[in-house]
């Protein structure tokens, strides 16, 4: 299957590019930071360790995937490797989706490694739910980074756009809460700003509802809420893949 071969090539490139070492280094850094901070705490030292580990590993997984996807895609574009591949008798969708599948596999592998590291601190069920959610979140970031890298065709803008989308998606809930706060002035301008924020929220995935540290610290989400949160990620991933395919089919190389 040509798509599977393309996916495998992405995985091989990530391995040879040192992604596993980077993941191990970030794990070590997160463990060290957690150990240091818990020494300063006078209570909840274990939950502080877990919260630090979960937050640092989540951010690391997302950053590594975004950087890996953007760098790998742009290297292929700049080296004209993509043009060479496109001369093969393969549909453009196979090229795009094969690569996306490879990056998603990278995301799943990273999420699995980082979830295993949390096992000494949290119950296996909670870690499993958190890990699946992290895998979906990182896969969504891979789809976003592939879309931006293909569309913008420059490394820094591609990474910046992916990071911007990710951070905004994680903060939009808090931004909406601030905009609708009781102390907000009831002027026309404020109402307009509130509507604008709500409008932006419609275009973003709700990343603040997934991979939550509270699942590890306190209690598992209800099955319905969990399915809804991951379902919204899947839908947004589909939207990004469709947008990427649309752009890829229109493009002249």
């Amino acid at each position: 299957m040509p798509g599977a071969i393309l996916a495998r090539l992405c995985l091989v490139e990530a391995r040879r590019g040192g992604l596993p070492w980077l993941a191990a280094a970030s794990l070590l850094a997160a463990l060290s930071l957690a150990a240091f901070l818990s020494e300063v705490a006078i209570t909840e030292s274990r939950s502080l360790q877990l919260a630090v580990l979960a937050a640092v590993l989540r951010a690391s997984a997302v950053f590594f995937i975004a950087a890996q996807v953007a760098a790998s895609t742009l290297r292929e574009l700049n080296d004209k490797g993509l043009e060479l591949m496109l001369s093969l008798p393969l549909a453009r969708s196979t090229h795009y989706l094969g690569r996306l599948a490879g990056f998603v596999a990278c995301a799943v592998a990273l999420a699995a490694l980082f979830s295993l590291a949390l096992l000494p601190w949290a119950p296996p069920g909670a870690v499993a739910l958190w890990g699946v959610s992290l895998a979906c979140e990182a896969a969504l970031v891979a789809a976003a980074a592939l879309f931006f890298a293909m569309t913008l065709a420059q490394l820094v803008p591609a990474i910046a756009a992916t990071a911007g989308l990710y951070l905004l998606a994680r903060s939009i809930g808090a931004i909406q809460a601030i905009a609708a706060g009781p102390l907000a002035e009831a002027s026309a301008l404020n109402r307009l700003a509130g509507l604008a924020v709500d409008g932006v929220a419609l275009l973003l995935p709700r990343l603040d509802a997934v991979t939550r540290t509270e699942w590890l610290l306190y209690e598992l989400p209800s099955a319905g809420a969990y399915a809804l949160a991951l379902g919204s990620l899947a839908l947004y991933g589909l939207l990004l893949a469709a947008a990427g395919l649309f752009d890829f089919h229109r493009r002249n190389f």
Partner: protein
Amino acid sequence: MRDERRLSEVPRWVWALLAAAAAAQIAWQGARQPGQPAAAELPGAPSAAALELAAFGERPLAARLVMLYLQAFDLSGLDYPRLMDWLGATLELDPRSEYPLFAAARVYAEVPDAARSRIALEFVYERFFADPDRRWPWLAHAALIAKHRLGDLPLARRYAQAIDRHTRSRDVPLWARQMEIFILEDMDELEAAKIMLGGLLERGEIDDPAEARFLQQRLQALEERLQEKR
């Protein structure tokens, strides 16, 4: 392995520049005063929503990091109303975290200044009602402080009555529900603290090693202080 040229290919002036820059960096940082502990002036507390935004939605982590930040301030010059605003925002950020109430009851209320101690105790009392079945241990401790440190028996009884009237869970031990009797009994602070800590430890309420260590140190300090008095 990267294909590299020999070290001798590097011009001497580049070697010298590298060594000088590294030495200057180390000297500069070495001469700098070690980081000042947080200044006495505690800034105004941001809202929980602002803290959540700053932490990109990582509410439990943000709540705990705020507590570590507050711990760095010197207790003597601390503005208590502002401090309570910070603790309130932290509790709003992660209502299930015990850290803010633990710090209010065990650290900020245990200061020699009675007025500031009362501010911290009232914070514990006000926040108790949001989740009595989980927050009773801090109000129980507040009752002990009100009785033994402030010598304010009506205040201690008010706290004890709140535990009795508002806790519903079976997990709340009998001695906590009967705190008022415990308060009215003629027992010294050490004895009362020992009974309370013993009860909490026995029920597995204190399972965090840092907390157990901290409380053990506090108990020891209390023992020494009372021995000195005698």
